[in-house]
């Protein structure tokens, strides 16, 4: 694959970086990333992955755009209210960068379809807003050996990390073995969130994903980033693979995808 002159121009600010160069840019154009959710986290992640020239982006979301999403989901617009989020995101991405192939999956993720979806991609960016989807993606990425770029937000706070099955780092279950019991999980309607918080966390996920695709820098593998917008602090915690992890530990008991019981609502935060 050779860059066209237009591509050299479009990506010139990457190409002049010794860490990227024409070679790195070609890698990005040949890469395939699956994004779970085109919501608060998926919006900035998808836009910046597309701008960077990631060649193929998959988007999974079963939801339609709601007016209350627009306070943070900047890939959509007032015109796209009631449209499928997948369609709306695809059209914004293609307007920004026609180089990018966008595959859309307007469906709920289940244990029956997730592995099939994953198999086509090099990396997964989790922009989901609920625990069942997060545990499903964690387990599926472990079984499929796909790197998972994790992010999560709540009110003014966010978390981000990278899970790389088989690379000595933890999975999400190593950090939080079980999801909070269903009776502690309220309705699907989201709690409040400062819109710019998923903006920053989604961008951190995208940045880590780009670094992985390019093979540069030190990733968040083994580190959990905690962001607090109110105090504007970023704290870094050490996270470890748990030898007792039921999924990736020494004596695993989870050998296949589970029934993730809680009702999965919106895919995208």
């Amino acid at each position, binding site marked *: 694959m050779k860059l066209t002159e237009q591509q050299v121009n479009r990506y010139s600010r990457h190409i002049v970086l010794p860490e990227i160069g024409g070679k790195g840019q070609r890698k990005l154009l040949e890469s395939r990333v699956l994004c779970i959710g085109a919501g*608060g986290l998926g919006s900035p992640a998808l836009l910046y992955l597309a701008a960077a020239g990631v060649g193929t982006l998959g988007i999974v979301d079963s939801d339609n755009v709601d007016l209350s999403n627009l306070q943070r989901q900047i890939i959509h617009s007032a015109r796209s209210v009631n449209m499928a989020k997948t369609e709306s995101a695809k059209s914004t991405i293609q307007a920004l960068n026609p180089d990018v192939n966008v595959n859309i999956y307007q469906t709920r993720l289940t244990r029956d379809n997730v592995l099939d979806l994953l198999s086509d991609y090099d990396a997964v960016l989790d922009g989901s807003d609920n625990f069942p989807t997060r545990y499903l993606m964690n387990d599926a990425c472990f079984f499929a050996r796909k790197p998972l770029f994790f992010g999560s937000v709540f009110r003014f706070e966010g978390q981000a990390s990278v899970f790389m099955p088989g690379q000595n780092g933890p999975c999400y279950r190593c950090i*939080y073995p079980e999801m909070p019991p269903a009776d502690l999980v309220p309705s699907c309607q989201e709690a409040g969130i400062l819109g710019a918080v998923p903006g920053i966390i989604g961008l951190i996920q995208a940045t880590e994903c780009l670094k992985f695709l390019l093979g540069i820098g030190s990733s968040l593998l083994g580190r959990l980033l905690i962001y607090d917008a109110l105090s504007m602090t970023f704290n870094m915690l050490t996270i470890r693979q748990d030898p007792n992890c039921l999924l990736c530990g020494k004596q695993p008991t989870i050998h296949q995808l589970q029934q993730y019981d809680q009702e999965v609502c919106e895919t995208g935060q």
Partner: protein
Amino acid sequence: MSITVRIPQPLRKLTNGLSEVSSSGQTAKELLGNLDQQYAGLKERLCDETGALRRFVNIYVNDEDIRFLQDLDTPLKDGDLVSIVPAIAGGVEENDPKNITRKIYLTFPHKQIQEPIVWRLAKKFDVITNIRGASVSEEIGLMALELKGGTTDIERAISYLKELGVKVEPIEKDVIE
């Protein structure tokens, strides 16, 4: 001896909004006990009935997870920095009591008397509404309303009412059933 403890957003309502508090304790367990003295209810949010840490909350001492140290027996020393880090998700507030009941008086502005606000409330939010009494004329609307649901949902329903210009007053304290 002073330990700095970082409090996550969901628990700050117990610490008067503080994101960092000072406390003490020879071990993580003792620290939690002391914190609970200072900020009642904190320990209950973090530990189950047996006293074990809930599985969706972690405690880090100077950036190390106590599960990989000596768990709640992990010794602490002066100047240690302890972080409490729960699992979070956009739609979810952990340890959010699910079944509370709140009784409120509503005073409707003139122009909204005709609108089916209570119906919209039940439709829009995950709360059970129960009208305990009402006095609606063409001039003014008064209503005693009972809301059941999660604290977040109820808070949101009440915010919504206020935004619509409805005057909201509590009838009595919350009852956790």
